[in-house]
C-alpha cells in the first residue's frame, strides 16, 4: 500500500467535496481548452498570413484599382504582355493573374466580380493578401468549371442576390435581373453579367465584411462575359522568401516602369498580425487566469484537507513518515482531483464546445476587435473541438503542475506540524 495509493484513496473519502472540486476544476479547464483551440486557430491564421503576405507582391495599373469597368475601361488595365515582362525573374515561385469588375447590385450596393484561374488563390479585393476564404457551403472550382457559367460567392453577396445560405444544397441559380445597376453609378463602363442563369456552386465566408461581397468566376468565364481579351486587372507574385521580397519588387518596378504600381503587402500583414497578436495575448491571459484559478481551488481544497485530517497527519508523523511521504499523498490527491476535473472539462469541451464555442469566442474576443473585423472574424475562425494527443498532453501537464503547486502549501503546513500537537488537538 504505497503513499500514492493512499493519496488515490483519499480522493474518494469525501465524495461531495471531490465532486465540488472536480466541477470547479472542470470549468477553468474548459476555458483553457477553448483558449487553446482559439490560440491554435490564431497560430494557423498567423502562419497563413506569414506564408501568404510577407512574400507577396501586388502589381496593378498605375493609379488604378484595375477594375475593368472603371472610367477608362479596358485601357486602364495592365496590358496582356505584362506577365512576359516579369518572366525569368529569379526568386519568383508563383505568378497569379486576376480580372476584376466592380458591380452594383440590388439596393445600390457595390460588389466585386473576380476572374480567377482554376487552382489559383481566390483573393479578396479588400484583403487579397490573405486569399482563399473558407468555402462554407458547396464546393470549390474544378478544371471542368473553366469557361462555364458557374460562380462561388461570398455570404453577403449570396444574401443580396436572394440565396438562402442555410438552405443552400450545393448549387443554385440566380439571374441577371437581380443584378440591377444603380442609377448612374459607374454606368459608363458597366458590363453586367447577363444572358443566361448563373449557377452558384459554392459559398464562402471571408474574414472581412467587404470580402463577403465578392463573386469569383473562372477566368475564362469572366473573359467571355466581360469581353476581355488579354488585359489583366492585377497580378500577384509570390517570392521564395521575405528576404528577397524587396529585391524582386525593385526589379519588377524597373521592368514595368510607369505602367504599374508595384506594392508589397507589408502594412496589411502588419495590421492583421497586430490584431491577431492582440488576440493571442488575450488567449494567454485567459490561460493564465484559468490555471491560477485551478491552483487556487486545489490550494484551498488541500488546506481544508489538512485541517480535517490533522490527527491523521499527526499519526503518520508519529509513525515516522517523512515530509516527502506525507507530501506524496497530497500531490497524488491534488493531481488526481485536477485530472478528474480536467477530464470533465475535456468532456464538456467535446460535447458542448462546438455549440457554445462561437458565442464564447464572441464574448471573449469580439469586444476587443475593430468593429468591421470582429464579426467576420468570429464567423470565420476555425475552432477545433477534437481531442488530440496535444490535448491529452495538456491535460496531464496541467494536472501535474496544478497538483504540485496546489498541494505545496498543504505540504509546507504539515511539514511544520508537530505530531504530538496534531494527535492531541486533531
Amino acid at each position, binding site marked *: *500500500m*504505497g*503513499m500514492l495509493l*493512499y493519496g488515490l*484513496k*483519499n480522493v*474518494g*473519502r469525501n465524495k461531495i467535496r471531490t465532486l465540488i472540486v472536480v466541477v470547479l476544476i472542470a470549468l477553468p479547464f474548459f476555458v483553457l481548452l477553448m483558449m487553446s483551440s482559439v490560440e491554435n486557430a490564431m497560430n494557423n491564421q498567423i502562419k497563413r498570413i506569414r506564408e501568404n503576405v510577407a512574400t507577396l507582391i501586388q502589381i496593378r495599373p498605375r493609379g488604378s484599382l484595375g477594375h475593368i469597368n472603371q472610367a477608362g475601361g479596358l485601357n486602364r488595365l495592365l496590358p496582356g504582355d505584362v506577365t512576359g515582362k516579369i518572366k525569368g525573374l529569379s526568386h519568383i515561385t508563383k505568378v497569379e493573374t486576376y480580372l476584376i469588375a466592380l458591380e452594383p447590385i440590388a439596393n445600390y450596393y457595390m460588389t466585386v466580380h473576380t476572374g480567377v484561374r482554376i487552382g489559383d488563390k481566390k483573393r479578396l479585393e479588400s484583403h487579397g493578401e490573405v486569399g482563399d476564404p473558407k468555402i462554407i457551403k458547396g464546393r470549390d472550382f474544378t478544371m471542368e468549371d473553366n469557361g462555364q457559367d458557374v460562380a462561388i460567392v461570398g455570404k453577403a453577396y449570396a444574401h443580396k442576390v436572394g440565396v438562402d445560405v442555410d438552405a443552400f444544397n450545393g448549387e443554385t441559380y440566380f439571374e441577371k435581373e437581380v443584378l440591377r445597376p444603380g442609377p448612374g453609378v459607374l454606368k459608363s463602363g458597366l458590363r453586367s453579367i447577363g444572358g443566361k442563369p448563373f449557377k452558384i456552386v459554392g459559398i464562402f465566408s471571408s474574414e472581412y465584411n467587404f470580402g463577403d461581397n465578392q463573386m469569383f468566376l473562372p477566368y475564362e468565364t469572366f473573359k467571355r462575359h466581360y469581353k476581355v481579351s488579354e488585359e489583366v486587372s492585377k497580378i500577384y507574385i509570390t517570392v521564395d522568401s521575405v528576404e528577397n521580397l524587396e529585391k524582386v519588387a525593385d526589379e519588377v518596378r524597373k521592368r514595368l516602369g510607369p505602367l504599374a504600381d508595384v506594392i508589397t503587402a507589408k502594412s496589411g500583414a502588419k495590421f492583421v498580425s497586430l490584431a491577431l497578436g492582440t488576440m493571442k495575448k488575450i488567449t494567454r491571459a485567459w490561460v493564465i487566469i484559468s490555471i491560477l484559478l485551478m491552483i487556487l481551488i486545489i490550494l484551498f481544497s488541500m488546506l481544508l484537507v489538512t485541517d480535517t485530517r490533522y*490527527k*491523521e497527519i499527526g*499519526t*503518520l*508523523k*508519529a*509513525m*515516522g*513518515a*517523512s515530509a516527502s*511521504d506525507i507530501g506524496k499523498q497530497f500531490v497524488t490527491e491534488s493531481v488526481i482531483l485536477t485530472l478528474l476535473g480536467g477530464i470533465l472539462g475535456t468532456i464538456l469541451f467535446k460535447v458542448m464546445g462546438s455549440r457554445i464555442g462561437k458565442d464564447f469566442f464572441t464574448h471573449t474576443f469580439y469586444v476587443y476587435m475593430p468593429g468591421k473585423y470582429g464579426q467576420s472574424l468570429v464567423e470565420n475562425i476555425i475552432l477545433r473541438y477534437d481531442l488530440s494527443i496535444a490535448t491529452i498532453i495538456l491535460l496531464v501537464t496541467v494536472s501535474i503542475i496544478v497538483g504540485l503547486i496546489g498541494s505545496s502549501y498543504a505540504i509546507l503546513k504539515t511539514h511544520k506540524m*508537530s*505530531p*504530538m500537537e496534531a*494527535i*492531541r488537538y486533531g
Partner: protein
Amino acid sequence: MDKSTAKLIGVVKTYGKGHLAVKALDGIDLNVMEATMTAIVGPSGSGKSTLLHVIGAMDKATKGEVEVVGVDLNALDQKGLAKVRREHIGFVFQTFNLIPILSALENVMLPMEFIRKGRRQKKERGQHLLRKVHLDHRLRHKPTELSGGEQQRVAIARALANDPAIVLADEPTGNLDTKTGRIICDLLREIAAEKTVIVVTHDEHIADNADRVIYISDGQLHA
C-alpha cells in the same frame, strides 16, 4: 545483564515562555530496561503523556539528557527524530488513530512504507501481525467495520510493524470496556516478553500487570 532501552537524566520540559511558562516535566530521571512493561500512572495534567512523547521522540526535552535505543535524542533534528520513530518506536493511541480509508491490513502495512519495504514483505508481515492479534479474519475490513477492541488490536499490530525496540501506549484501554481492556492488556504483556513496553494508563489492571509502575505528579516521578 539487563540492558537499558530508554534513559532520561534530569529531563525538564517547559511549554511557553516567561510568566506563562508551564513545567510539564521537572527533573525526570528514569531508566527503562528492555523487554519490560512499565506503567506510568498519575492524575490528569501530571505530565504522563509528555513523558511518553519525550521518550517517543515526538517532542524534545527543554533540558536534560534523553537516550533511546542508544541514540541521544537531543542531538537530533526533526528529520532524525522521525527516523528514530519509524525504526525504533511503535505507538498505540487511546483513540486507535487508524486511517479510516485503509483496511486493517493496509493500516498495518503503512509504517513499513516509511522504511521502504517491498510490497510482498509488507503484506506478509502485515498478515502475520494481524494473525498474532487474532484478526486474520478481518484483513480487508475498514476501521469502521471493526469493534473498539478490534481496532486497538489493529493499532497494536501496526505499532509492531517495523519491529520496534519500544512500544509506547497512551491510555490504550481508555476507550474500551473492561473485558476488551483486559484482552489489550494481555496483548501488551505478551509483547513485553520481547520488547520494551511503556504504557501511560489509568487502568489498574494494566498497572497490576506491569513489571514496574511509575507515579508521576506535577512533572516529577515518585517511585
